[in-house]
């Protein structure tokens, strides 16, 4: 990477990061205006990136079609057709049009729900495979998991009324404490990563050195 390719993005990133942080703490309307504008740019850039995704997907699947990849090429052709049909209808008729809404409600909604439902079955096989009392830690995990899962449904309280007390205690104390700790460490990790990025020591987002 040349000097300009390395240093200029770092300076831009640092300047915008410092501005946004500054604006959060200090009352300075000009800084707020620039910060709001910059955050808007980020949203616009991310939206433009969808175009890159469309191009990348199209090239990959067109290659499958041209190469007649076994068991794949017709699915790729269907995907490309649907993708562009959705884009044309959405851009041409608008996302509020009845055609677009019909397309959305008859394809994306049921498909989303279907894939979500797979989670149930996968949860079963994952739990069956991994919830074994191999040692003390695993046994403790297993017992806690069973207590919580029976607390979430009325079954636990049908077995004994004390079940809700135990379940409530587990979710309110150990779970809440660990949740807060993990949340705090995530925040601190993000701060450290942010400082490394601002100071230019973290280059992963610049594709490295």
């Amino acid at each position, binding site marked *: 990477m040349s000097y300009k390719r390395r240093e200029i993005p770092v300076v831009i990133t640092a300047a915008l990061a410092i501005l946004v942080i500054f604006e959060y703490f200090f009352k300075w309307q000009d800084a707020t205006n620039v910060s709001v504008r910059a955050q808007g740019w980020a949203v616009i850039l991310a939206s433009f990136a969808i175009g890159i995704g469309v191009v990348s997907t199209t090239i990959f699947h067109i290659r499958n079609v041209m190469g007649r990849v076994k068991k794949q090429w017709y699915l790729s052709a269907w995907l490309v057709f649907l993708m562009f049909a959705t884009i044309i209808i959405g851009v041409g008729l608008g996302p509020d049009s009845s055609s677009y*809404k019909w397309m959305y409600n008859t394809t994306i909604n049921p498909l989303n*729900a279907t894939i979500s439902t797979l989670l149930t079955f996968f949860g*079963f*096989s994952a739990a069956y495979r991994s919830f*074994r009392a191999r040692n003390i830690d695993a046994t403790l995990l297993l017992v806690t998991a069973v207590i919580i899962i029976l607390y979430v*449904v*009325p079954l636990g309280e049908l077995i004994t009324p004390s079940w809700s007390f135990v379940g409530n205690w587990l979710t309110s104390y150990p779970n809440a404490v660990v949740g807060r700790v993990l949340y705090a460490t995530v925040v601190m990790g993000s701060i450290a990563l942010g400082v490394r990025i601002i100071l230019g020591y973290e280059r992963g987002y610049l594709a490295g050195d």
Partner: protein
Amino acid sequence: MTNEKKVEEKSGLSLPKLDERVIYWALVVLLLLPFFVNMGIPLPLSPMTQEFYDYVDRLKPDSVILYSVDFGPGSLPEIEGSIVAVSKQIASKPIKVVIISVWEPTAAPVNEEKIVSVFKAAGKTYGVDYVNFGFLPGGEGAVARLADDFKGILKVDYYGNSIEDLPMMQNIKDATSFTMVIDGGFPSWLYMRQNWVPKYNIPLISIEAAGSAVEVRSMYPFSLKAILGGARAGAEYEVLIKSPGVAKKGLDSVTFGVILFVGTIALGNVIYVRSRRKK
């Protein structure tokens, strides 16, 4: 794990050889059963659900609440009961509601179908009793600006009406114009929590899926005043508002699924312990 599998296969009761599809079919049957046969499983009321109900019940007439719901179609099987029941309770009260989604773009049609329809059925007048702004893009930044200048960022509603033409929006300026925020969905509650609660001290209560409810529990009772989590909470809410819906049947379905789940784990552990003893 490889060694355990070998040991299990030698134990004579090797469940790993049992086709998983047997368990899956058993699951399908058990999940569908409550929809055809009334199970009548008792449902004790959780204190958290009662607390959520009380928060909504205590709202004074002419209060304005922000109802920010971000559940897409994939979450509906679990959460529909909660959303509809809470909407019914809100619709039964003389309060004003601003409906919006701030994170999930696919939530706007869901809100139109599940929430707005409840208000219409309750005889509420659009623009006077409730307003729907659809999806607000921009993530947390937009939510922060919404708190500071509501009309600065929202110009038209979901149907294209100018915000100035909506009677109930005349006195809405910023977060201080709202009495409470009811949020649904993860991570939109985080946006509200970080931008509406600390600066404006607005009470925040949240409707969550079961998995997210466990995570957001760590924020109770400081940032979140009450949480309605999962299918069970929805079923309890339907009982509270005396309006049975899909949540109770769904909960019975989940209950049977849990029975099979615990049974499968127990059977797997019995085989495992037996095989270890044989070894």
